[in-house]
């Protein structure tokens, strides 16, 4: 059972179709699956529903799929960094479903863990709860939210082994780990692909059971969105 693919394009081969639902990991531009996004752009697959916390920036991250108008709908919590997104949305070319960030993360986790619905206090009394069931537990109101699952999840990790076991680095873990569990097929790109046994079993963040395909992404650009520094003393 070989999970290893030689490049991002072959790693997506046979998985893509118009109108499909994808999850894409990352927070801002941190930990985005940049090579898989490039391959997705090249594939020309369209009418995509993309579940991702953000929509990239102009010309980077998922932003490149806006340029080619491949995205029909975004399910996100914050899309404030993207002018092209703004234009397509205001022109009515792009559908948008906002989720509170924690509700988004939990819906994805629920999709991976076989939980079709759960109750949360987040969003009660706001637009987010409209049309959804509200229920009282122990004197407080909660709103029922449903799971999210995807045809394919594309994620990015730091190190991975050929069995699909993954380790993330620092805050690049973000949505990548839960999204790995919620794709019918999960494709992971990594900065370093190693043999099984190289990663300590106690340090694995995402067990290989969740990863069907893996590719060594090669050179990473790893763009910084907001470079903030302090003066040296």
């Amino acid at each position: 059972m070989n999970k290893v693919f030689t490049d991002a394009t072959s790693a997506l081969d046979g998985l893509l179709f118009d109108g499909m639902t994808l999850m894409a990991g990352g927070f801002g531009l941190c930990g985005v699956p940049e090579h898989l996004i490039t391959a997705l752009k090249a594939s020309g697959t369209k009418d995509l529903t993309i579940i991702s916390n953000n929509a990239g920036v102009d010309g980077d991250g998922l932003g490149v799929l806006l340029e080619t108008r491949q995205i029909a709908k975004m399910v996100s919590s914050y899309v404030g960094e993207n002018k092209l997104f703004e234009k397509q949305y205001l022109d009515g070319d792009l559908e948008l479903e906002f989720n509170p960030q924690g509700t988004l993360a939990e819906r994805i986790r629920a999709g991976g863990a076989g939980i079709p619905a759960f109750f949360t206090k987040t969003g009660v009394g706001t637009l987010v709860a409209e049309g959804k069931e509200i229920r009282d537990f122990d004197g407080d109101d909660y709103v029922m939210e449903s799971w999210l699952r995807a045809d394919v999840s594309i994620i990015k990790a730091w190190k991975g082994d050929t069995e699909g076991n993954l380790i993330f680095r620092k805050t690049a873990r973000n949505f990548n780990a839960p999204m790995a569990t919620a794709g019918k097929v999960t494709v992971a790109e990594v900065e370093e692909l190693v043999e099984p046994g190289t990663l300590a079993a106690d340090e694995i963040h995402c067990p290989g059971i969740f990863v069907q395909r893996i590719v060594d992404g090669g050179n990473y650009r790893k763009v910084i969105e907001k470079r903030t520094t302090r003066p040296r003393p």
Partner: protein
Amino acid sequence: MAWTRDEMAARAAKELSDGFYVNLGIGIPTLVANYIPDGMQVTLHSENGMLGIGPFPYEGEEDPDLINAGKQTVTELPQSSYFDSAASFGMIRGGHINLAILGAMQVAENGDLANWMIPGKLVKGMGGAMDLVAGVQRVVVVMDHNSKAGDAKFLTACDLPLTGTHVVDLLITDLGVFDIDKKNGGVTLIELAPDVTVTEVKERTAANFEVAAGLA
């Protein structure tokens, strides 16, 4: 004389206690980190999946894998830990964060908060704000008392779409500090900025409030 942004942040820092886990929003709340008293340990939480946010890195030491919820490059501390976004919001929703300090567009006298959406304008999204106000043990809002146009932002009821209902415990503006009883209702002005009068605050506020003994 109304408080400056830094004075408001310094006032908000008085809400911290030793051992607190705290989430700071973007803008003035971020400045609160500069006013943590020496010797007090406060661990800062970042929604994207980190506890123990350190200061900005030195130039040339920025790490693209290490950012805060505002997407700014930050650094790690000895006590830092990383986790995924689902776990991060488990902490928030589960009530494990002691304090959130946030900005706002509007606050109502019942503790309602609006800070994510202006109808007719492009909406950027609520990010983690709804989760924070619903889940964190205590919510402190820091905002200018009035809009640039001079309109009241502390109201009897918010007219902007809400971020949460009955969520704000304390409101700090450039004019003073209001204690909000979000469970039972009732607002009390408990502090005034230097040379600001109760009369001035009343003129510039739409919300109803009591005035603490000693201020009136």
